[in-house]
């Protein structure tokens, strides 16, 4: 099911949660809506489900405008952040609920309901918990039951609000992998909301980055990481260094020294002369030992595949540098050593 959102505006009292959002979600896609808290990402998801009504704008499922449809008529499965399982019903009855509340004409017979629920509990691997109550389940198990309940009505679209937010780190990674497999198997259009960039970049086909009620950028994870559209996305996704810089005749200069010709610098806008900020990822900074260099090493971390070095420039900026570690560790800088820095790529944003 393709979803087309255009010009969506939503306010709560004097607070505007969404300032005109446009978005295309492709059929069968696994899409993440990523943003800090207060960016309007959950509001957008709730509007898609019909749990909120927009002040302006349209939502289309396929060719059909679903603006007037109640949540129950939209054919969506929704998994709530805290699962919202029915606390007085067993796992089985939770999953069966969506089928049992159907009008008699479209309600499947009891035997079929049983079969469908058991199949779903099998699919989410909690078939051994059929008769338990939600309070007797762990967080990960609740999450799986909530998903089975949402899938029971055979929705066209699956919406998940912070699906892994309330779980501990290990269960989270496990469930993430499992959800990706499940999506591959079912091929259902799936949208999930998260504030965790790693989760979004790891799981989604495409990611919508939101900030303060606006879409900042939409793209594949790698696109977002390698070519952030603006300062917000640069800051929000991954680690970044911000250097004071200026633009002269189309060349970016840091501390009055033009940076190497070979560096790939994106310019936001078509300005020629300006002061501003140069955003550089830690792995796009290189350092070489140099007794007359502009920076001093302040900290070195040797754990993991990357050598992480913190340096301080002579005008007081703290920068992070990441260097892939080879099999040997011969060229490890030591705190206190002076180094020179080279920028290999980044984004210049005029102030």
């Amino acid at each position, binding site marked *: 099911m393709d979803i087309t959102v255009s010009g969506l505006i939503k306010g709560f009292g004097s607070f505007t949660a969404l300032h005109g959002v446009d978005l295309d979600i492709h059929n069968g896609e696994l899409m993440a809506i990523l943003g800090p808290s207060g960016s309007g990402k959950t509001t957008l998801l709730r509007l898609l*489900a*019909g*749990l909120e009504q927009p002040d302006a704008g349209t939502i289309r499922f396929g060719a059909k405008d679903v603006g007037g449809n*109640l*949540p*129950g*008529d939209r054919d*969506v*499965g*929704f998994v*709530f952040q*805290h699962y*919202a*399982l*029915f*606390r*007085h019903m067993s796992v089985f009855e939770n999953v069966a*609920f*969506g089928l049992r*509340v*159907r009008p008699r004409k479209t309600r499947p017979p009891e035997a079929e309901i049983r079969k469908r629920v058991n199949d779903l509990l099998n699919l989410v691997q909690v078939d051994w918990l059929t008769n338990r*109550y939600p*309070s*007797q389940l762990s967080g990960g198990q609740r999450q799986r039951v909530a998903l089975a*309940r*949402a899938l*029971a*009505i055979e929705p066209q679209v699956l919406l998940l609000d912070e699906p892994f937010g309330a779980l501990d780190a290990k269960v989270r990674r496990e469930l993430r992998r499992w959800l990706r497999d499940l999506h591959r198997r079912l091929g259902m259009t799936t949208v999930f909301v998260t504030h965790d960039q790693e989760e979004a970049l790891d799981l989604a086909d495409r990611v919508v980055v939101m900030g303060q009620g606006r879409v900042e950028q939409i793209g594949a994870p790698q696109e977002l990481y390698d070519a952030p559209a603006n300062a917000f996305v640069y800051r929000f996704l991954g680690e970044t260094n911000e250097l004071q810089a200026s633009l002269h005749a189309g060349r970016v200069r840091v501390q009055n020294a033009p940076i190497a010709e070979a560096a790939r610098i994106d310019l936001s806008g078509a300005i020629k002369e300006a002061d501003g900020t140069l955003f550089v990822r830690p792995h796009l900074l290189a350092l070489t030992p140099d007794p007359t260099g502009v920076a001093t090493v302040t900290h070195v971390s040797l754990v993991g595949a990357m050598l992480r070095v913190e340096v301080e420039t002579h005008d007081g900026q703290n920068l992070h540098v990441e260097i892939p570690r080879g099999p040997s560790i011969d060229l490890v800088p030591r705190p206190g050593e002076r180094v020179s820095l080279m920028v290999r790529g980044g984004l210049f944003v005029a102030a």
Partner: protein
Amino acid sequence: MMPPTEPRWVRYTLITVAMLFLTGLVVLPLLLVFAEALRQGLSAYFTALTDPDAWAAIKLTLLTAAVAVPLNLIFGVSAAWAITKFDFKGKSLLITLIDLPFSVSPVIGGLIFVLLFGLQGWFGPWLRANDIQILFTPIAIILATIFVTFPFVARELLPLMQEQGRQEEEAARVLGASGWQIFRRVTLPNIRWGLLYGVLLCNARAMGEFGAVSVVSGHIRGETNTMPLHVEIMYNEYAFTGAFAVASLLALLALVTLVAKSLLDAVLERREQRVP
């Protein structure tokens, strides 16, 4: 459990004081009610209860509770539902209004109805012209009782439903349930214990209310006397057995309510413990 930090004599003094207070002010009077009621033997007791006026008072009290409690059940659930599940203008006003009967003296509650339906009241002339009598009839008694008891159910449900939030209802909506199905299958099972608790308290108050009912009743024997009013009349006429026999029924009702309430508390506690 923390080891007691106060010296033994302090603990025992405090416990003794509390016990003496309770015995003197609650247990003794209660025992006295039953002792007085049964002073002239069981047969006098039952004769007093089956006296036509006493019997009429018992029936009127039951009728009043039977009308007031269900109405307040409906009102309380609707109000709590509206307040916790929707956002609307005037919400805080509604919450304040629900509390009003708690903060107003019951006598004032009764007086309101005199001002509305009395001969000199707002609707007085119209009611007289149409030959409708409300004041000094069971209708007035029921109205006054509803006024006094209407916070009980809503007040019991509000914190419970606030704590439970709206998410389960929203989940049910997305799954295609209708408003009635959501109420029947999701909301009601979640609030049933709180609801029962509220109904119990509401019922106890509906049967025991004196002030508001006294103002609107007119004290017509056999017609507009409820049990508490009947007790007062009998007592004033030195018919102690009659007064205490009916009073013992009211006390019994209070005891049953208390026992039911503690049983409910125990059930609720056990359910809480099941949640990890």
